[in-house]
């Protein structure tokens, strides 16, 4: 017995087999093998060989299983025949319906109707824009300003297929101690620079004849995740520009006044669903199917949201879940959002003459702040095409299009 123990105490030095090293570790196994082998085969080498063989067998079978699994996994996409599209959304009152569309299966229903697959993916806002520009997703929910800045100015031709709503008080300038817009020059203002917040602020100053003083207000770029906490706790800062629900949080504090908000500039901050133009123009028409499915699902959801009664409340509660809001707080946010529930409303807004004027204001802002790209020498280098065919800017440099065809089809029930 001692001899056996000694044999397996040290790794045998048969060359060329690293598995034999494990002999040291599996002395117990070896002994068991030895004892199980029966009286007629008690020599050392066959036992070692058996150990080697059993180990090799185990490794081989594992390798085989792994190979089969890999093949299965690799083969899976090959078996997919439907074109797949992804629409990205982020938490905002006007885009939360995407959560509902996904959860309730409405999106799937419409996708199946057109024989495609649609994935609904939630992002944080800036990453959703990055993903859209990087062409990782085909459609995205964003504001008109971002549609100009990010994809359009980066050369990614974008089409807005759904105009969902405009901010009607969701974005606001809040101050403490009764500070007014005219008191702001020389003071510090907390906001996320180069976003709709800054646009709102500048429009507010312009509308109050304070355009020349804009540069004298010191802007403190504060990230949106911390802006509420920062303004609330640091009372040395007098003014902040942000959006709901952060606005609601801040407003709850004593002594805060809402001195300017987006309801005073209706129709300038639009929330859109945009799709990459090259996706829409795909030869096999799958892109158009995608757009149709999106529009169909969207307006079906809008219809569900616009009713009155317990059914609507249930829908709204589900939507509010998407941003972990309560029903009341979501409804409160809805009250300052002008949602275009019917395609007809949306069409009216998009084809109105004011639309062009307002987009010009937005475009001017973007150009002034070099948001259209540092190398963009003129404001016309990023052109916008409107449903009536009119183009703002150089005709060969159209990067943003407003497409009413899908909203039209929705209005006519042709989806």
């Amino acid at each position, binding site marked *: 017995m001692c001899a056996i123990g000694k044999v397996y105490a040290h790794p045998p030095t048969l060359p060329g087999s690293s598995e034999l090293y494990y002999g040291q570790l599996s002395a117990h196994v070896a002994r068991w093998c030895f004892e199980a082998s029966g009286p007629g085969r008690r020599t050392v080498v066959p036992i070692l060989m058996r150990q080697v063989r059993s180990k090799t067998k185990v490794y081989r079978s594992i390798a085989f299983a792994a190979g089969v699994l890999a093949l299965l996994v690799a083969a899976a996409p090959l078996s997919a025949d439907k074109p797949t599209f992804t629409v990205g959304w982020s938490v905002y009152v006007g885009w939360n319906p995407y959560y509902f569309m996904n959860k309730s299966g409405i999106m799937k229903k419409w996708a199946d109707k057109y024989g495609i697959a649609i994935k609904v993916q939630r992002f944080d806002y*800036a990453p959703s824009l*990055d993903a859209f*520009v*990087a062409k990782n997703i085909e459609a995205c929910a964003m504001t008109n300003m971002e549609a100009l*800045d*990010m994809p359009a*100015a*980066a*050369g*990614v031709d974008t089409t807005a297929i759904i105009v969902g709503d405009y901010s009607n008080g969701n974005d606001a300038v809040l101050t403490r101690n009764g500070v007014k817009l005219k008191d702001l020059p020389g003071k*510090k203002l*907390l906001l996320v*620079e*180069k*976003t709709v917040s800054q646009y709102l602020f500048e429009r507010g100053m312009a509308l109050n004849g304070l355009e020349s003083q804009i*540069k004298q207000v*010191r*802007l*403190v*770029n*504060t*990230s949106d995740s*911390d*802006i509420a*906490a*920062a303004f609330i*706790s*640091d009372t*040395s*800062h007098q003014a902040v520009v942000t959006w709901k629900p952060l606005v609601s949080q801040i407003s709850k504090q004593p002594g805060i006044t809402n001195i300017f908000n987006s309801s005073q500039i209706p129709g300038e901050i639009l929330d859109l669903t945009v799709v990459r133009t090259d996706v829409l123009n795909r030869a096999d028409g799958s892109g158009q199917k995608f757009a149709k499915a999106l529009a169909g699902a969207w307006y079906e959801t809008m219809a569900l949201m616009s009713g009155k009664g317990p059914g609507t409340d249930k829908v709204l509660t589900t939507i509010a879940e998407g941003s972990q809001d309560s029903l009341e707080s979501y409804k409160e946010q809805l009250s300052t959002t002008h949602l275009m529930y019917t395609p007809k409303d949306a069409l009216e807004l998009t084809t109105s003459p004011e639309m062009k004027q307002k987009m010009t204001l937005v475009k001017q802002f973007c150009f*002034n*702040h*070099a*948001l*259209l*790209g*540092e*190398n963009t020498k003129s404001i016309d280098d990023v052109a916008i095409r409107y449903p009536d065919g009119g183009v703002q800017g150089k005709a060969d440099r159209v990067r943003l299009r407003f497409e009413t065809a899908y909203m039209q089809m929705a209005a006519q029930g042709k989806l």
Partner: protein
Amino acid sequence: MSLLNICAKPSRAATWTLSWLLFATGIVMYFYTAQKRHKENPDDRVVPTLSQLASGIYQAAMSQDGDDQPSADAQGQSAFERFRHGMLWTDTVASSRRFFYGLALLFPAVLLGLHMGIFPYFGIFFLRFILFFDKIIALSVLPILFIAFGIDELSKVMLIVIGVTPTIILDTFNLTKGVPPEQLVKGFTLGASDFDVAYRVVLKQIWPRVLNSIRLNLKPLMLFLFAGEMIASTDGLAYRIALLRRHMGMNIIIPYVLWVALLLFLVDLAMRLLNKKLHPWFREA
């Protein structure tokens, strides 16, 4: 030639080529990707080409805050003047100020670690709390930070201090404990008082190791500085990067990132040389 040969002695040529190989590969792959993307979309801003990068560098160095239109008197200024007023320099100055304030506040931390290691009462008073405090992630308690320090310069420096100081304190503590007790006893037998032993015997011995520890913590220091600037700021390197992200100004962001890397490298080098000069007797790396 086996790559897994411990006793290998690479030739000079091999050393030179191999150590630059990864750089070369990275640069080549980058410009290849840039070319490809620009063929598809000439306005692409995500992966800037060499000319875009060059213009980005020029812009960052020479032009003022991106918003301002070039003022009339900018024409008359010399290149040096324009650089001084340019984005890059003003941002660097703002960030560096905060960086060096944070760095300066590390030295009291070293003294605290020293006292904790040497004087038992100090040790039992502080050690447990600092071990706990070390585990608090500064970024997760930002609201408390804001209430206590506001969102201006003080809070940014305090963010750095809260983030990096516990590491320095604990490291110094360990280094102090690592001094052989014979040395302390020697100090006493030569007539030194407690204070003398702490400062003239122990601190002088551990000082080069402490400097090395601070050098290693330069990157976390920079990280906390950047976090603070990205959250709420009016100027600074990270502030600029956060802003440029909004419209994908990668042609300026990439030069900024490389510039920060260069600055950190220079500070590290300066500290290394200082350490060597002050402590010629210290043999380790």
